[in-house]
C-alpha cells in the first residue's frame, strides 16, 4: 500500500518542490547548458575574442587522436569494471561462507573505500615507482621488466589495478548484502534437489544476485569513466605520451591545461552522450532479463 499525504490546492506541492528544483537547476542544468553553449565557441589564443563557430569544435572529435582516446577508455573501463566486479564477487562469496572472523575480514576489505582517489593513486605509485617502489624493486629482482614512467602499457596496467583496488570494497559490500539476502533454506532446498555446488551457484545464487550485479555494473561503468580521474591524475597525469589519458582526463587536459575551453566542452558533451547511451542500453536490454 502507498503512504500518501494529501494536500489541498495546487500551490503547496509546487512550493515544496521549489528548493529541490533550484538545486537541480543551478548545480546541474545550468552548468550543463553552459557546457553545451561553450562547445559552440572558440576563444583566440590570448583570450581576447570569442567567436561562435557552430560545430567546428565537434569536428575535432573525429580526429584520430580522439578516437584513440575513446578506444583506450573502452579498454580501461572494461578492465576496471570486469575485474573489480569479479574480484569483489569472489571475496563476497568467501565472506558469506565463513562464520568465524567474517567481521574482521569485512572491516579490512572496506578500508580502501575510505581512501581518497588521489591518495590511492599516490600509494600505488609509491609501491610501483621504478626506482623506489617496493613492488617495482621486487619485480626487477625477479627479472620482470617494469617501467610505468616510460612504458605506456605498464602505466595503463598500473592505473587499471589501482582503480580496481579502489572500487572493490564498494562492490564487495553490495555483493555481500545481496548474498546474505538469499535465505539459507533456498540453498538447502537446492542441495536436497540434487544440485551440485557449482550448479547451485549458477542456477540459484547467480540469478538471485543479478539485480545487485546490474546495479553495480551501471555504477562501475560510471566510476571507470569519471571517478578514476583522481587516480590517473595523481599517478601518471595521463602519460606517458597520453597512454593513460581517458575521455574525462582529456576533457580536463584540453580545458584546464590546454586552455582550449571550446574543445573541452565539446568532448564533455560527447562524454555525456556516451554515458547516457550506455546507461539507456543497459536498462533497456539487461535489466529486463535480471529482474524476477
Amino acid at each position, binding site marked *: 500500500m502507498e503512504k500518501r499525504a494529501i494536500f489541498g490546492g495546487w500551490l503547496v506541492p509546487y512550493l515544496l518542490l521549489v528548493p529541490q528544483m533550484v538545486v537541480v537547476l543551478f548545480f546541474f542544468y545550468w552548468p550543463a547548458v553552459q557546457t553545451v553553449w561553450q562547445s559552440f565557441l572558440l576563444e583566440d589564443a590570448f583570450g581576447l575574442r570569442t567567436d561562435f563557430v557552430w560545430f567546428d569544435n565537434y569536428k575535432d572529435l573525429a580526429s584520430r587522436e580522439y578516437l584513440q582516446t575513446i578506444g583506450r577508455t573502452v579498454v580501461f573501463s572494461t578492465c576496471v569494471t570486469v575485474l573489480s566486479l569479479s574480484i569483489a564477487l569472489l571475496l563476497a562469496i568467501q565472506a558469506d561462507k565463513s562464520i568465524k572472523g567474517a567481521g574482521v575480514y569485512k572491516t579490512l576489505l572496506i578500508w580502501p573505500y575510505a581512501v581518497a582517489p588521489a591518495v590511492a593513486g599516490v600509494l600505488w605509485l609509491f609501491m610501483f615507482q621504478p626506482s623506489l617502489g617496493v613492488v617495482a624493486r621486487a619485480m626487477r629482482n625477479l627479472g620482470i621488466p617494469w617501467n610505468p614512467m616510460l612504458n605506456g602499457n605498464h602505466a595503463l596496467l598500473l592505473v587499471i589495478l589501482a582503480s580496481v583496488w579502489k572500487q572493490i570494497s564498494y562492490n564487495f559490500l553490495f555483493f555481500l548484502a545481496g548474498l546474505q539476502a538469499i535465505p539459507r*533454506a533456498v540453498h538447502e*532446498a537446492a542441495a*536436497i*534437489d*540434487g*544440485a*551440485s555446488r557449482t*550448479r547451485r551457484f549458477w542456477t540459484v545464487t547467480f540469478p538471485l544476485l543479478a539485480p545487485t550485479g546490474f546495479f553495480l555494473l551501471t555504477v562501475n561503468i560510471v566510476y571507470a569513466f569519471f571517478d578514476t580521474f583522481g587516480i590517473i591524475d595523481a599517478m601518471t597525469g595521463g602519460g606517458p605520451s597520453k597512454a593513460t589519458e581517458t575521455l574525462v582526463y582529456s576533457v580536463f587536459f584540453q580545458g584546464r591545461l590546454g586552455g582550449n575551453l571550446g574543445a573541452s566542452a565539446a568532448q564533455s558533451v560527447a562524454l555525456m552522450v556516451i554515458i547516457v547511451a550506455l546507461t539507456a542500453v543497459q536498462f533497456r536490454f539487461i535489466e529486463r532479463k535480471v529482474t524476477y
Partner: protein
Amino acid sequence: MAAVTLENVRKTYTGNVEAVRGVSLTIPNGSFTVLLGPSGCGKSTLLRMIAGLETITAGTCAIGDRIVNDIEPAERDIAMVFQNYALYPHMSVYDNMAYGLRNRRTPKDEIERRVAEAAKLLGIEEFLARKPRALSGGQRQRVAMGRAIVRDPQVFLFDEPLSNLDAKLRVSMRLEIRRLHNRLKATSIFVTHDQVEAMTLADQVVVMNGGQIEQVGAPTDVYRRPASKFVATFIGSPPMNLLPGKIVAPGQIEAGGGALAYDADAFDARVGAGVDIGIRAEDIVVGASGGMPFVHEFVEELGATRVIHGTVAGHPLEFVTPAAAELAAGNSLRVSAASPAAVHVFDPATGRSLRR
C-alpha cells in the same frame, strides 16, 4: 519408500549447545510420524540431521537399510518442505517443481508428465507459469509440496510447513496433507509445536522435550496414557490437571482435601508414597460426595462446552461441562474423577508415569 531408523543420535552445535541428546527412534515404512514438542526442543535439528543438512555428532541415522550419516542430502532420496517455503524466487512454479528432476537428468517428457500430475493433485495447474511472488501463502505452500511430490522420494520431511498460514488455511491444508498421505503412502516426518496438528495428522507421535524423547505412540496413546507429566500437560487442551497426593491404601489416594479411587493394577505405587495425580478436564465430575472441595473462580464459554476454572486446596484446576449444565452456586462444590481409570499417577521426583 523406506523406514527411517535413528540410533542414539546426538547433536552438539558449536558453543556446546546440546540440541539433541541421544534419540533412538524407528519411523516405520509408510507411516506419518510427527515430531512434537515446544520450541527449542530440538525437533528441527533432528529433522535436519535426517535430511543431511546438519552433521550427526554421534549415533547413526539409516534410511531403509543404508546408514546415511556421511551421505550428501542429494543422495539420500528425501524431499523437504520448509517453513518459509524456500521456493526459488526467480523461477516459475513449473521450473521450481522441475528443478530437482532436471538436476537428476530426468527426460523432458517425464518431467512434464510428473509436474502436470503433481500440479493437478494440488490444484495449482493454473499457476504453473507464475513466479512465486505472485502467489498467496497457501499457493506457495502447495508449490513447495509439489516440488517434493514430483521427486517421488523415499521420505518426505516437513518442518512446520503450516505455521506461516492463517488459522483457517492451516486447518484445510492440514486435512489436505493427510489426504495426500493416504493417497501417496510415503514415509513422512512432520515437525510441529502444535499438538492439534500432531493429533490430527499422525500415525505415530513423538513427543520431545529438551533434546530427548518423552514418549512415542499413537495419538490416542499419548493422550490417554501419557508417559510423563510433561506429555500429560503438553497434549490436550485444556492441559491435564495435576495435584500432589498420597497413596493411603491400594486403590485409594488422598488429594486436594478429598479421597479418590485409582486403578491399583495399572500403577505401581507404594502405600504411603507421595505422588502427583493427573485428571483430564473432561474426566472431572461435580457433586460426588467425598470429592475435593472446589473453589470456583470463573467460567470460560466455548459454545458447546464451558471450562470452569478454580482451585482445590490452593492448586489450580479446570474442568469441562456441557454448556447446558447448571452449576450449583457458591463454594460448596465438590469435584472428583469420573472413574478410577481417569486418574493418572506420576512419580513427583522424576515426573514419569508410574504405569506398569
